[in-house]
């Protein structure tokens, strides 16, 4: 080989080796300080336009100010909640796929037969950002002016005389579980009628087809309450601060409803990812525009860090399992 060629070859090799060395040191450093290096996918387990969707998007908008690369939301409803949960659980634990979740996905579904995961070990918990306002609503022309009146009436009349509208089978929803606890306490029964969406339950109540509405608080619902057409008898967990006189089941019956909306990712997410995300979301929750949106959608902002949130979930789990067994047994007896 000619001398020039030899020199070129060696030079190229050395250049290549230098590059490799630089890259590999970069690789070691890049993991920690350069996350996120590309956009992060955030899976919303409900359809677009709903409370969880709108509030998640508002949180993402506020949080993106604190991240180098943006979080991008996509809607992936389906499978009763199993599909979006699996999409998060089976993703690569590199911090680029996370999602929102509620008690349905984390507590109720694992206790069903068709859910592939049976506990929370497949997930990393990142943060909790809110709680739902769950009202128990009747029309203002109904005979019950307070919750106590409704309970008294229910006890005097045949079981299941009061028709309550909700959006899913009661075993799969936190509202269903909470009301079941109350029913056992007071020893009466509602007849649960499930509808496909919150809007349908609202129109069923307004149209006098059902007696009670027990889904979530939406601005549309609040319009009717403010107008006087509908009346809130009780809140299951947190209450609207303007309604100090309305009882909360949590206080009256002394139990902890599984009420939360949080963010999770696949298991074994590296610590620096959890730290960075947790920090960014916490800052995002302080953003005034986010808080305004949460206000408008009647969702209280409720921060809880990942370790306490995980503890909470572990505490809820056996309680939910037990309730589901009772509900399944009840359904079979009929």
């Amino acid at each position, binding site marked *: 080989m000619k001398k020039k060629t030899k020199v070129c070859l060696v030079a190229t090799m050395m250049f290549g080796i230098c590059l490799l060395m630089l890259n590999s040191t970069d690789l070691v450093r890049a993991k920690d300080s350069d996350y996120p290096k590309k956009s992060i996918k955030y899976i919303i387990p409900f359809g677009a336009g709903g409370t969880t969707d709108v509030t998640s998007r508002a949180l993402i908008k506020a949080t993106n100010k604190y991240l180098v690369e943006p979080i991008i939301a996509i809607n992936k409803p389906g499978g009763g909640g199993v599909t979006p949960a699996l999409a998060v659980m089976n993703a690569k634990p590199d911090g680029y796929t996370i999602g929102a979740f509620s008690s349905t996905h984390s507590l109720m579904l694992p206790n069903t037969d068709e859910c592939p995961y049976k506990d929370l070990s497949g997930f990393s918990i990142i943060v909790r950002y809110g709680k739902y306002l769950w009202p128990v609503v009747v029309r203002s022309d109904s005979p019950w002016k307070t919750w106590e009146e409704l309970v008294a009436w229910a006890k005097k009349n045949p079981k*299941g005389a009061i028709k309550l509208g909700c959006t899913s089978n009661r075993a799969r929803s936190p509202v269903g579980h909470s009301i079941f606890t109350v029913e056992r306490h007071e020893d009466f029964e509602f007849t649960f009628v499930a509808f*496909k969406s919150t809007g349908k339950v609202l129109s069923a109540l307004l149209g006098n087809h059902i007696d009670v509405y027990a889904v979530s608080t939406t601005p549309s619902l609040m319009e009717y309450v403010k107008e006087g057409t509908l009346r809130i008898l009780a809140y299951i967990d947190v209450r609207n601060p303007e309604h100090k006189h309305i009882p909360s089941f949590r206080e009256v019956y002394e139990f902890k409803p599984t009420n939360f909306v949080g963010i999770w990712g696949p298991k074994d997410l590296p610590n620096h990812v959890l730290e960075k995300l947790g920090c960014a979301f916490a800052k995002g929750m302080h953003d005034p525009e986010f808080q305004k949106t949460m206000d*408008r959608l009647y969702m209280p902002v409720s921060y809880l860090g990942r370790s306490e949130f995980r503890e909470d979930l572990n505490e809820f789990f056996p309680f939910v399992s037990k309730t589901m067994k009772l509900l399944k047994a009840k359904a079979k007896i009929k």
Partner: protein
Amino acid sequence: MESLDLLLFGFSEIVTIERIIIVFLSVFIGTMIGVLPGLGPVATMSLLLPFTYNTSLLSGMIMLSGIYYGASYGGSTTSILVNIPGEASSVVTCLDGYQMARQGRAGPALGIAAIGSFIAGTMGLIGLMFLAPPLASIALKFGPPEYVSVMCTGFVLLTYLASGSTIRALMIAIVGIMLGCAGLDLETGLPRFTLGITDLLGGIEIAPFAMGLFGISEVLINIEEVLKEKRSVFSAKIKNLLPNLQDWHDSLVPIIRGSVLGFFVGILPGGGAVVSSFSSYAIEKKMSKHPERFGKGAIEGVAGPESANNSATAGAFIPLLTLGIPSNAVMALLLGGLMIHGVTPGPRFLPEHPDIFWGLIASMYVGNIFLLVINLPLIGIWVHLLQVPYKLLFPLILIFCLIGCYSINNNTFDIGVMLFFGAIGYLMRKYKFEGAPMILAFVLGPMFETSLRQSLLLSDGSFLIFLTRPIAAAGIIVSILILLSSVITFIRKRKGVIEK
């Protein structure tokens, strides 16, 4: 008249360069989205929703609704050209529209669809303007028992969708009902027909199902025909680009009937556009003096349903704007957009925000005109697209279907569904089973079952609830009358044949 004054006020709100451009762009985007199979207005609107945060509320609403009703104009295009329904409500247009395209009459089909949509959209808006509050309170009276009776009527009309054997239509309809029941049952929360596949827990998505059953199967059949008989799929001779006088004469009454029917049915939350287009087709066929023409390229079969699904989009606004209750996924998105701006639709919406309501209506009048202007010239382009040799056309069709199908839920399972039903649709065609009755049953079956069970829960198990409530009873009587009239017609024909 007060309403006209308010309408003028609405026009004054939108006559700014910015807003007119927004109307034009949004209906244009909507049309294109409607043309692409699968990718629907919901996906597009949720992508564009963040833009509405920074604009004024009215501009945001104009943009989102423009996409919505623009898409219903474009949805008929692929149904007519290549037998691919972009959405469930465009399925019926495939039946006769595609046959017209094969006969070289794609132009008139597209033309009547566009003009029918324009007339229907405008009539729907007039209904929205004057009838919104009273209709809203009537819509509230429709509870589960009333829905059962509406579904009953739908089922009775189902066999009108078949142009071939009625027995086979009924058989395939039952399969459709079974497929519709796949997924998590609403009342018990238990999975049905899910075969252990988690993706089936949410049921079979209708858009991939329809795209496969109609579109993919059509491609497969055509490939076979082209290979076997070396015949071209579409008639080489294009008869004309626009509807002729005879077409106008035939279509006028169906358009009016479809508009009225679609508007009222569209008000009912849940399945409004689908049920209205199917019912319009069945009614046109029943009212026609030559029902045997349907399924072979009868223009009434395009005019009626296309008008119905357009006025249904106007009707769908009523529950949202007057009651704050969204009747479908699109309305739920609009509701989200309104809520972000702190405006809640409901009983106080009209009195407190007349600028939004009337501005929106005014923008929809303008949007409908723009849509007519956009769609009519495009007919020439679409028609000539069909002249492309099929061996180049069908891969493009398949690619569009794939992209459109995935865009619905970002789920590859849906693509599997589409391809599976493409194969099933091919087999069905070979054995002379039709897809339309199957899809209608697929949509109606679960709705009927859910409403039936809800009704029985409300009545504590008594079936009398269907007779004691006036609207429900009326619906059931209508269904019985339709059945009776078919029986009478059948007996008369029999008598006529015997006498001869």
